[in-house]
């Protein structure tokens, strides 16, 4: 076995690999760029080597520096993680030349699977089913119909030069194939000046399901599947294992084909064979990933295997001690990717300091958090904006979902925007709960983006009870302040009005041995909690149901975060509530005629002057944030009324830059 390995990666995956290596008694070497000087993976490793500037092209992608780091530290093997150099055959070859082991498959597998056409060819040879289609030029409608019949309906007729949905037709019948050929050809000619079209099987309600394999060069096992259909613009968001869609028979068939393909390229390590699966559970090979996948933890959770440990062992020449029969899938596991992005602003990446980062508590076999950041860490513009992967496990899918919801409620992140509201919304969709997934799920369910209204209406009792308990403790404490008139001290009252948003809810709150009893709308709930002043999380059992609400004090009010929603609450006496209702509602000013700074940064230049007319798409200003220049363009035609900032100004987020005429 190796004594020391180097991890040619950063972030959560570097930390993940270090964890397994440490468990195996192997020393670890981290490499890091300028931006990662203070990162968690650097702190966790036994040794650390600086390998260059922040941009990955100048650090994590520079093979020579990584190989030099291996030599300098005496690392005998390199784990590449995912991304960066993980599927780079030249890197594997270079390491090989230096006698350093690559913790991953051999050169041939990387090369063959790295090529889309060759991998499909190999797959076909290995009797792996691929998407049926005819790549040749079709001369007329009748030939198109014949080919369509051979493939089997429905089919997709696509322009060879196509893109953007132009020149694409779906045909379910011969008639439609005939018409589709004609219209697709015409459209292709007018749009692209190229009327060639081809035909392939149209996959209805496609699902992305992938098979994990583990091979030592002799034995090759399939370790169950993962379903990754919940994707936003081809970026996976939620993954799970097993798939709610597969039958044992289909799983076995897919597994065996994956193994056949792996064997065809002498695969030796952990790898993933991706399939697209249609509504009738027909599956077709997409591609093979010759590395560890981001979503590998869900497989680990349901199999109890440590895939990284096996990758290291296999790279060191050990053989698998498992047989296919040893692979048992137990329970259900879900993974949510927590990204630093603002789901309310078109998922704009959000970078900066995590002023507070408190992940939910890990519970063996139930909740797992894979992350590369810590409290006070930085989400840098240079790399993927993933903050963490939150993984839960349950005896069945519903339990795994319930645990995920609770864990998301407890995930306390401040300083950068994150997609937890979006994840909470996804988990609450009936279609998700029923497991009716397709890769179009997000595009269909959030056709015009994500909005607060996409969050389910929750029973307000939880929020009311939580904030009432916190306030009652606050009032109790206020009654203990020193300097009161002796003998005339304050008594804490029990009757309050919780003003949640604009709605008043009268409550009665009585302290009990285990927390408080809260009466809302004539119904009393018992709230067991041990909340202490300063705790960001209000963890309670409300009438037997575990609940976590994030409570931030905001002046005299409270901001509550629960199930993806955000609410403001004031707890008032009856009199104060009556007066609060008299207060004018202040509308947020209309900001649509302003160009606002989308991020904190430096105003580098302004491209317009007062009185100037601008057209939609015209360049208005350049803002530098974190050394990156961002060009702000006009959203629509208009005339510049007033300029509110000058080049060289430091802008805060939402600061006015330009005002347009109405």
């Amino acid at each position: 076995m190796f004594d020391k390995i180097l991890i040619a990666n950063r972030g959560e995956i570097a930390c993940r690999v270090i964890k397994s290596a440490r468990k195996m008694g192997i020393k670890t070497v981290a490499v890091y760029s300028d931006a990662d000087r203070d990162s968690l993976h650097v702190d966790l490793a036994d040794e650390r080597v600086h390998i260059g500037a922040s941009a990955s092209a100048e650090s994590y992608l520079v093979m020579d520096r990584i190989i030099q780091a291996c030599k300098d530290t005496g690392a005998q093997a390199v784990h590449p993680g995912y991304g960066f150099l993980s599927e780079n055959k030249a890197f594997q070859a270079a390491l090989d030349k230096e006698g350093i082991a690559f913790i991953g498959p051999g050169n041939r597998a990387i090369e063959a699977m790295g090529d889309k056409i060759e991998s499909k060819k190999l797959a076909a040879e290995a009797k792996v089913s691929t998407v049926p289609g005819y790549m040749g030029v079709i001369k007329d409608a009748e030939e198109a119909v014949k080919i369509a019949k051979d493939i089997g309906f429905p089919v997709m007729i696509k322009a060879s030069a196509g893109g953007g949905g132009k020149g694409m037709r779906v045909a379910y019948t011969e008639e439609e194939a005939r018409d589709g050929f004609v219209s697709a050809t015409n459209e292709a000619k007018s749009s692209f000046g190229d009327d060639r079209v081809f035909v392939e099987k149209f996959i209805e309600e496609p699902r992305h399901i992938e098979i994990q394999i583990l091979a030592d060069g002799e034995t090759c096992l399939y370790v169950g599947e993962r379903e990754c259909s919940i994707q936003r613009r081809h970026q996976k968001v939620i993954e799970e294992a097993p798939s709610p869609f597969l039958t044992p028979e289909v799983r076995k068939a897919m597994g065996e084909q994956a193994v056949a393909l792996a064997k065809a390229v002498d695969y030796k390590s952990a790898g993933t064979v991706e399939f697209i699966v249609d509504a009738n559970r027909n599956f077709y090979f997409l591609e093979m990933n010759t590395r560890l996948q981001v979503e590998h933890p869900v497989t680990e959770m349901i199999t109890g295997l440590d895939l990284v440990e096996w990758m290291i062992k296999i790279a060191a020449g050990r053989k698998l001690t498992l047989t296919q029969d040893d692979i048992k899938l137990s329970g259900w596991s879900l993974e949510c990717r927590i990204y630093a992005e603002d789901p309310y602003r078109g998922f704009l990446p959000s970078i900066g300091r995590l002023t507070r980062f408190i992940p939910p508590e890990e519970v063996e076999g139930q909740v797992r958090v894979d992350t590369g950041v810590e409290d006070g860490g930085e989400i840098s513009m240079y790399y993927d904006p993933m903050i963490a992967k939150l993984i839960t496990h349950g005896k069945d899918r519903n339990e795994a979902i319930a645990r995920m919801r609770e864990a998301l409620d407890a995930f306390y992140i401040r300083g950068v925007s994150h997609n937890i509201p979006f994840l909470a919304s996804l988990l609450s969709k009936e279609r998700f709960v029923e497991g009716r997934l397709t890769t179009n799920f997000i595009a269909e369910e959030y056709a015009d983006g994500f909005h607060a209204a996409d969050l389910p209406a929750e029973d307000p009792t939880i929020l009311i009870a939580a904030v009432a308990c916190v306030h009652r403790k606050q009032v109790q404490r206020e009654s203990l302040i020193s300097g009161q008139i002796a003998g005339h001290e304050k008594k804490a009252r029990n009757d309050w009005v919780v003003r949640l948003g604009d709605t008043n809810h009268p409550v009665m709150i009585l302290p009990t041995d285990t927390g408080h009893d809260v009466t809302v709308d004539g119904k009393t709930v018992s709230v067991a909690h041990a909340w202490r002043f300063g705790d960001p999380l209000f963890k309670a059992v409300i009438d037997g149901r575990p609940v976590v609400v994030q409570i931030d004090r905001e002046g005299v009010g409270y901001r509550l975060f629960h199930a993806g929603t955000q609410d403001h609450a004031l707890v008032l006496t009856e009199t104060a509530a009556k007066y609060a209702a008299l207060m004018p509602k202040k509308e947020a000013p209309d900001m649509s005629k302003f160009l606002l700074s989308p991020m904190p940064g430096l105003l580098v230049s302004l491209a317009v002057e007062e009185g100037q007319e601008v057209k939609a798409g015209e360049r208005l200003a350049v803002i530098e944030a974190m050394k990156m220049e961002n060009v702000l363009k006009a959203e629509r035609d208009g005339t510049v009324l007033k300029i509110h900032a000058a080049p060289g100004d430091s802008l805060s987020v939402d600061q006015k830059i330009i005002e347009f005429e109405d």
Partner: protein
Amino acid sequence: MHEIIRQLDEKRAAARLGGGQRRIDAQHAKGKLTARERIDLLLDPGSFEEWDMFVEHRCVEFGMADSKIPSDGVVTGHGTINGRLVFLFSQDFTVLGGSLSETHAAKICKIMDQAMKVGAPVIGLNDSGGARIQEGVDSLAGYAEVFQRNVLASGVIPQVSLIMGPCAGGAVYSPAMTDFIFMVEDSSYMFVTGPDVVKTVTHEQVTAEELGGAITHTSKSGVADLSFENDVVALLQLRRFMDFLPANNKQKPPVRPTDHAWDSYDMSLDNLIPNNPNMPYDMKELILKIVDEGDFFEVAPKFAANIITGLARMEGRTIGIVANQPMVLAGCLDIDSARKAARFVRFCDAFNIPLLTLVDVPGFMPGTSQEYGGIIKHGAKLLYAYAEATVPKVTLITRKAYGGAYDVMSSKHLRGDFNYAWPTAEIAVMGPKGAVEIIFRQDLDNAEKIAERTEEYRRLFANPFVAGSRGFIDEVILPHGTRKRVNRAFAILRDKALENPWRKHGNIPL
């Protein structure tokens, strides 16, 4: 007997109606509460005792003899906020526009006198159209009587003003002499001369809101310390604020129990300071992470934001915080920030509130506007305030402490009790680049040499150890243990005794 009691009830009910239901409705329509409703919210329920409910004005001119309303436009009395005594007055806009008459002023003076005798804070809820013009000089005399009392009470009992409507002309000078001015957004304004006079005299067109609204005074003029969205929030925030203050200058600030462990570590502070010395970071994050429960009552957040001032608690005891803010103007000292901080330091010192100073200051702001504006005298105010203060003073240098600004920011030399530095501190006359360009002026055209010298200077001086070797820094501490160190320092200093030499008063550079 019962009949007499009934008569009293009726008299009280009539007085409580102030200017009558129609005017009360008009007040509500403006989004404002009435004088008595405001008191209901501010004080503990049932604790208010109204004084001088039956006072009426004595003016007979201009038909005033017929428009007498009990209370005469101001409700005065005492009550408690979380069990602690306060005296207060609340001007009643529904009665003759809350205008100040001789008797109205006398009522205010009466509660101020009583507050001084028992040593309790005075709170003013201002909502007044101005002087009762019908009374002429009697009204002016009334103002002056109040001013005189404001001055004598200054530094003896806390005085807080909450402007909840108009406050114009001479009337502004009473709040101006209190310790803090809070305002309600969109419904209050303060100015010495109103928009009409301004237009006549200077031909400037300006609205009351632009001239003296909450935004103007909390961000441009610095006259007001805070503003709140409406009456309810403002009054609840005022309750929260009063919980920090001692009743008078002979008492220590109140103590409130806390669950927050005094010695808890916060590892996230170990990477608060960016690797690049020119990158800003948010000093408020440090404040929120070291004070009890992250509960910080910031004062004047929008004015001179390059310095942060506010109240918080450590181990349940009130402290005042002054901190440079690297996010704004790199945290440098200028006229506005020096004035803002100086006044805050003097308030804390007057009322026995220990001071925590967090330093990251690159120096004083250069430029003609600063010099012409008198930065020398204004900067001196902060220096004076720190040097004069005898309360416990704990200072922490997080990063830069350059030049004269280092001296000013509660340095050891100004009787700092505990002067800590993080290992990232740089205590020097100036930054490495500027220093080298002066010391090695002859090498200016040799970039290589300059770079070498800069590095040398950085190595020698850009750290806390030179100051440490002189004893100007008592201890270099790790960021994550800041709360523990600061808490212990203040605990040790609880019985600090230090007095300045006797004098009539010092002569602060005004």
